[in-house]
């Protein structure tokens, strides 16, 4: 999990009563995030590594790194796959 993650430029976040919805303006699709996903997205105002993100999550939600790492890896894979975030080596 080397490299850093950043937001796709054409994606905008909407706040729906505290829940985050991402709009990909290029594909005209929307994706709903849970609270953790919304936190990760909002953290990505600048490119961050997996380590940076995992540390922030662990602190924010007071969760052990083991659980955070597994969830975060899955989340980043999903969002990369659907083109909402990019990974750069």
């Amino acid at each position, binding site marked *: 999990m080397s490299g850093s993650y950043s937001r796709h430029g054409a994606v*905008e976040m*909407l706040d*729906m*009563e505290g*829940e985050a*919805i991402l*709009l990909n*303006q290029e594909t005209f699709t*929307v994706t*709903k995030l849970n609270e953790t996903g919304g936190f990760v997205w909002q953290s990505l105002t600048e490119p961050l590594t997996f380590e940076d993100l995992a540390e922030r999550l662990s602190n924010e939600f007071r969760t052990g790194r083991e659980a955070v790492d597994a969830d975060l890896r899955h989340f980043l894979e999903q969002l990369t796959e659907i083109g909402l975030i990019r990974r750069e080596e």
Partner: protein
Amino acid sequence: MIEALRLIGDNLIRFRLSGPEAERYLAMTIGSRPVPPAVRRAPDYTIAVSSGYGHPLEIAEDAEVPVAFEETPRGLTFTRADYRLAISADRREADIGFCDYFSLRTALLNWLSTVLTERRWGLIVHSSCVVNDGEAHLFTGYSGAGKSTVAALSRPRPLLADESSILQVPEVGRILVHDSPFRNDFPEPAGVSPVPLRAVYLLEQSTSVGKRRLRGSEAMLALFDKIVHWKYDNRLSAGLVRQCKTLVERVPVYVLEFQKNDRFWEVIS
């Protein structure tokens, strides 16, 4: 050249038709309701409609068919195998070439969606819409979910739409539903328009009857892909999403489980 005036939402449109075939297809597509004398004024838009363009699509109606888009200083052009829509730079005039009912209907919805989105006027939603006690109830869902069944079961209540509802989203105040001339099975005009929107229902056929309110984010996800839209400009798409957000913030959205009978009105009203 044949001329015809039609009202769509609060837009007065002058059609210039190439001949009797175009006139006949226009009547099939958006009806032949005369414009009330009270609305007679200079037309907001002029659309020239010519038959004989391209060839019919040989695929299912709801399949995604690519539309080529071009923007030049002279305006916007949308081209598909079965229609061509050109909109002038000032958006006041348009030219449509079509070959059959389906292509003319799609071209007109393409035109309407484009001008309404650019003006931030409102949304077109795949849905039927019924007036009950002076308020509009909008029913949506995937193809086959029962939009037109609900319309049929709701008679004699007035229908504002049986498949494409025209929603005005003002900056403040209630969402308004205008009588849609795009009809499939029920061409009779609603007789009242516009009507404030009371609620939106996502249809689910079931063995029971009941309703469950969706949270804002769920409602947004459920409604978003029911919007009739031709994407060609990211900023416009974003504007449309904001209007969809305004809609779910101002109007409750429910999942409606219904059987194929009119008992669903008991849980709605």
